[in-house]
Structures are given as C-alpha cells and as structure tokens.
C-alpha cells in the first residue's frame, strides 16, 4: 500500500469544458518510497505519433526523432530525465514504452484518413498546390492546365479520394474542392454550401457514433483542415475572405495561405503578410493553430512561432527544372526559375512541414475533440436528444 500517494489529475494549459484530452499525471508525492515504481508520463493518443519511438534500455534522455518545425506530438520521455514529474529512477526495464511501438504497428496496418478542403477563387493554384504538397496527382484535374475550367454557376463541392503510401504508412487522402467559390458577380452567402457540407460530415459521424451496434472504425469524412487561399493583391484581405473565415473558423480548422506568391517581391510579401495578420486579429478570426487550444508552454512557444509566420506565402508547381545541376520543382520564367522548395523563394517548405510533418495528427485531434464535440453538444441540446435513426431497420439509436 502506498502511503501518502496522491493521484492527481491535473490539466495543463487552458481548461476547456467538455472534451479536452485529459492528461493524467500520476505523481508520487512521497519520495521516500524508493521501492515504488513511478510510471512514466503517458499521453494516451488515439493514433500513431509522428516521430518513430526510440525504445531503449534505461537511459536518462530519450533522443527525439526528426522534427519539422518542432514536433508537437508523441513525446515519450523515459523517466529519470529530470523533469518535475518522475523523480526516482527506474530500477529495471519493464518495457511499458513498447506500447508506443505496438500502437504504431496497429495504426500502420489500419492506415488513416485525412480530409483536406481547399477554398479560394478559381485560378489561385489550389489544385496545383495540393498536388505539390502530396507529391501526387490528387486533385480534380489530373493534368495541369489542360481541361475546360468553366466557372460553375453555384458553389459545388467535389471530393476526390486517393490512397497514398509512404514508408509503409497508408493514408486515404480526400481532397475536397469548392469550384465556384467567390467567382460570381454576387457572392453573398457563397460559403453556405461549404458550411452545410462540413456540418453534414459531422452529422454523419454523430449518427454512427450514436448507434447501438457501432462499427469498429467509423469512417471519418469530417473535414480536418481547410486551406483558404488568399489572392496576392498586395493590399489587404477582401471582404469575402473575412466573411468566409469569420463564419467558418469556429467550425473547422482554417489555414490561410497566400497563393501565387511569386507575384510579390520580398518587401511586398512581408508587408502583405503583416497586414493580413493584423486584419485577421482585428476581426477575431482564429486560424489554426488556435491560441486557445495550446496545451502547455512548449506547444505554445512552438505554435507562437508558427502563428507569427502565417499566413504562408506559397508557390506550387508540378514541373521540374534543372537548377545548378539539381532537379527542382519550380516555375520557369524569362528572368529566372522560381524554386518551390527553396525557403528563400517561397514558404512552401514551411507549409508542408507544418501541415504534414508535424501537425497532421493534431489537426485531426482538434477536429475530433473540439469542433466535432461543439457540434455534438449543440445537436444534443437543441433537439433535446437525437431522433432515432429510422433509415436502417437494424440500427437504433440509444436515445
């Protein structure tokens, strides 16, 4: 029996009502019990951490894996590294940290879903950018500029799914395109179809969750991330940009990007970014990563750095050219080659690292734990409960 053992679950960072990932720290306050075992801090995560774990025999510090802009995911600290939680060193190696490896194997087998929505006027290079991000032809248009780019009369929602694989990890990537957004003469409420689509996905997931006989893995069609393309006018945001982001930043993770940024010189770019950030602040638009969801100081610092650098000014391209003996993705003009992955030319590399290499999982989590839960709470409160599902005979709701 442990004397004076106190199990305190403390929530770090801001307290969010409802559903924040509980991080329970079991702290052994009495240090006299040298015989007792101090379990390492484990963050229960539903899916695979981004960094490969290092399973090693007791060593003071576990080396961290490769990080993009600083990993915010899956920290596995072997006890004895001198942080405030675990004081005493482990006497023998148990192997609890192999759970990370087990989780990883499972998720690799299962694969995971990622749904990204791209919104912006036609011609801002959305499809090209998505192709460049995922280094495959995942957008609506399989070839570059060729086909008929007729502007539809209303905003349409077109979702295209592909399964891409890298390093044994399978990802079902769905790109949701929104042609017709912002292209009409009268663009009032053109964000309504988009908002409806996002809520429909939440509804679908909710219905599955509320079933008595639930599927083992609910297919996740919720929009995890919305890339909003800002036109590089060099002046300021347009009214439509502000209205859209105001309405949707509470419903989905919005990442604003400045499209076709090879149209601006460095000074113009910095000035524009600064002005855009100011305007987003003035209108209270919380883009991802949102301030309020930062867990702890480390996250906050890292996210602060990212927030300062956003919105990223990007250039997309799926053509390769020879520059200084290397083959690079770029755009060739009469006065030079714009290199997409060169950080001096544009911020594509930053966006890619941020979106894919470090925050992919976090995007899914925020969508699941915050946006979805907000929707769910609202739904459950509104109607005093969900209506029983009558569409399928075998499924009944538990309300």
């Amino acid at each position, binding site marked *: 029996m442990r004397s004076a053992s106190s199990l305190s679950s403390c929530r770090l960072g801001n307290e969010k009502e409802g559903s924040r990932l509980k991080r329970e720290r079991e702290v052994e306050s009495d240090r006299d019990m040298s015989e007792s075992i101090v379990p390492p801090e484990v963050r229960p995560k539903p899916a695979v951490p981004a960094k490969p774990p290092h399973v090693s025999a007791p060593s003071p510090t576990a080396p961290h894996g490769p990080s993009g802009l600083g990993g915010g995911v899956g920290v596995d600290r072997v006890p004895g590294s001198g942080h405030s939680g675990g004081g005493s060193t482990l006497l023998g190696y148990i192997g609890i940290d192999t759970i990370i490896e087990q989780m990883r194997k499972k998720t690799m087998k299962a694969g995971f879903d990622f749904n990204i929505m791209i919104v912006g006027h*036609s011609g801002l290079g959305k499809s090209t950018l998505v192709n460049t991000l995922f280094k495959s032809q995942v957008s609506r248009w399989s070839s570059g500029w060729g086909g008929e780019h007729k502007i539809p009369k209303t905003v349409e929602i077109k979702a295209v799914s592909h399964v891409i694989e890298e390093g044994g990890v399978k990802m079902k990537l769905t790109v949701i395109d929104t042609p017709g957004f912002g292209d009409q*003469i009268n*663009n009032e409420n053109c964000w309504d179809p988009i908002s409806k689509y996002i809520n429909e996905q939440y509804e679908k997931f909710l219905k599955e969750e509320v079933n008595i006989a639930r599927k083992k893995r609910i297919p996740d069609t919720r929009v995890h991330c919305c890339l909003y393309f800002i*036109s590089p006018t060099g002046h300021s945001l347009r009214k*439509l940009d502000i209205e859209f982001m105001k309405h949707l930043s509470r419903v989905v993770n919005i990442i604003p990007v400045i499209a076709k940024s090879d149209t601006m010189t460095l000074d113009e770019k910095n000035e524009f970014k600064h002005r855009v950030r100011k305007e987003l602040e003035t209108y209270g638009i919380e883009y991802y990563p949102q301030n309020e969801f930062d867990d702890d100081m480390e996250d906050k610092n890292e996210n602060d750095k990212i927030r300062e650098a956003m919105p990223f000014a990007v250039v997309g391209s799926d053509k390769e050219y020879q520059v200084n003996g290397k083959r690079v993705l770029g755009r060739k003009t*009469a*006065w030079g080659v714009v290199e997409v992955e060169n950080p001096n030319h544009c911020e594509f590399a930053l966006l890619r690292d941020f979106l894919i290499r470090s925050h992919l999982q976090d995007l899914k989590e925020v969508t699941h734990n915050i946006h979805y839960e907000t929707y769910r709470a609202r739904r459950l409160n509104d109607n005093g409960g969900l209506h029983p599902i009558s569409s399928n005979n075998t499924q009944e709701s538990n309300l």
Partner: protein
Amino acid sequence: MSQSGEKGKFPEAAGYVGFANLPNQVHRKSVKKGFEFTLMVVGESGLGKSTLINSLFLTDLYPERYIPGAAEKIERTVQIEASTVEIEERGVKLRLTVVDTPGYGDAINSQDCFKTIIQYIDNQFERYLHDESGLNRRHIVDNRVHCCFYFISPFGHGLKPLDVEFMKAIHSKVNIVPVIAKADTLTLKERDRLKRRILDEIAEHGIRIYQLPDADSDEDEEFKEQTRILKASIPFAVIGSNQLIEVKGKKIRGRLYPWGVVEVENPDHNDFLKLRTMLVTHMQDLQEVTQDLHYENFRSERLKRAGRAGEEDVMDKDQILLQKEAELRRMQEMISQMQAQMKMKGDE
C-alpha cells in the same frame, strides 16, 4: 499655272501653290493648343493599376497612396476619382486625365458596381452634347472618356463573370483595351494560353474591344510590321513598377525577386512597351473613334429619345381631334333624330 495641283518638291518651281504646307500649320496650331486625353482605368483593387499608370507616363500621379484596409472597404461603394496632370514633351503639351474607379469589384455583391461607372461616362457625353449645342462653342472642354483600360486578373483561367458583364455594358460607350495585369506571375506558356482564352471568350460573348486600325498602304514597312505585332499581342500582358533597380550598371524600372529581376521595359519580359506604343501612336485614333462612333451613338440615342417625347404630344392632339369629330357626329345624329320625332308628333 498648268501644274497647279501638283505637290511640288521644289517650292520655287512654277506651279507650287503651297497648300502642301497645311498639315504643318495644323500641326503647329494643335501643338500650341495642346492635346487632351482622358483615360479610365477599371479593375479590382490590387491589380497594379496605379503603378502601371505611373510607369506609363513616368509621373507620380498618386503620390501618397493610402491603401484602405478591408474594414474601410466594406463601407465603400464604387467611386470615381479623376486626376489631371499636364505632361510636356518636346514642346508638345498633353493634358492627361486619369479616371480611377476604386471600389470596383470589392464588394461581396458586385452587381451594382458598374452603374456608377456607366453613369459617369454618360454624364461626360451629356455635358459635351450640351456644350456642343450651346451658343458659345469656343471653349468646349472635352472630358469624354477616350479609352478604358480594363485590368484582367492573371490569377484566373480567363474572364470572370464580372469582367464579361462589365465589358458588355460599356463596349458601346467607350474604347475598351483589355490588359492582363501583374504578368510576372505567368510563365510564357501560361501567358499565351491566357491570352488565347481571353480572346476566345471575348468573341464568344460578342464583346467589341478597341480594334487597332490597319496601317495605310502608303506607310512604310516598319510601321506596318509594328502594327501587325501590336494587333497580335492584344490583350497586353503588362507589369508596372515604381522602383528603379540597377541592372548591368544601368538604372531601370523593374521588380527585384530572389530569383531574378523583371524589367518593365524589356519586350521579352512583358508587353509594357507595346502598350505604351499603342497608346501613344493611336491617341489620335482613340479620340476619333470616341467622337465618331461612341459619341455619335450616344447623341443619336439621346436626341431620338427627346424627339420621341415630342411626337407623343402630337399624336395625342390628333387623337383628340378625332374624338371631337366623333362626338360632333353623334350630336348631329341625335338632333336629327329628335327633329324627326317632333315632325311625326306634329303630323298626328
């Protein structure tokens, strides 16, 4: 005197009258008078219109630009701002008026944004018509819009619905010159594709843009070639810049990127020089077309409308006459009926 009509090369030769000098006299008079030209620029904000105007005329027409944030833009409707500048070059004076249209295309609902512009153009025509029909015609100021540069965004795949609607609404009132703005965004292939697409869409919607007149057959080959090149490059893909950059020891206007320098006046980089050439060599023609075509259209429409209002009065008078005549006839019939009745009674 037998060779009176001959344009003699030798002024002293017999038969030289001297009216071959007339063009020179006209030239001298007009140089003294100076030229007037009104240019309207229309396009969404942020397409580089002001920068281009400054580059074209090598002046700073907009010295202290205040760029409003999105907050202020929300309140604004389309406005018309006309700024005039006098430019002199080699003794020739040009009074250039640039009409800017800030707020165009900014609103979420842009349906009304060209009403203001069309009204402005019509007002200028109206004023000229009024002056022309007035008693004192000595100092008519010509503020009619001679040319409209319409800025097309390079970020789209062609014309936007707003572009099409606007051009359809004003192509019968002003000379439209479509211009592709911020052309340093496009690679050469993309530029060609975009130009072709725009021309296709213009033809598809029946939009009448300003057509450069073919060179006369007696002009020299060089001029003809130049005209051919100009005609083939419409719409012009241009870049503007207010900054001077040093390239190979020379200071030129351009934009400095980490991957290279875009030179504004380099014909390989963009069509800026072609646009300037076109504007300058065809300034006279633009004014003529405005006078002969657009203004005359407006004038005949206006006068017809005024005339039709007068005609309606006349028609009413005829109708009234007819009505009165019909009434008279009826009364006469009644009287004759009553007379017949009285006669019958008298007979009884």
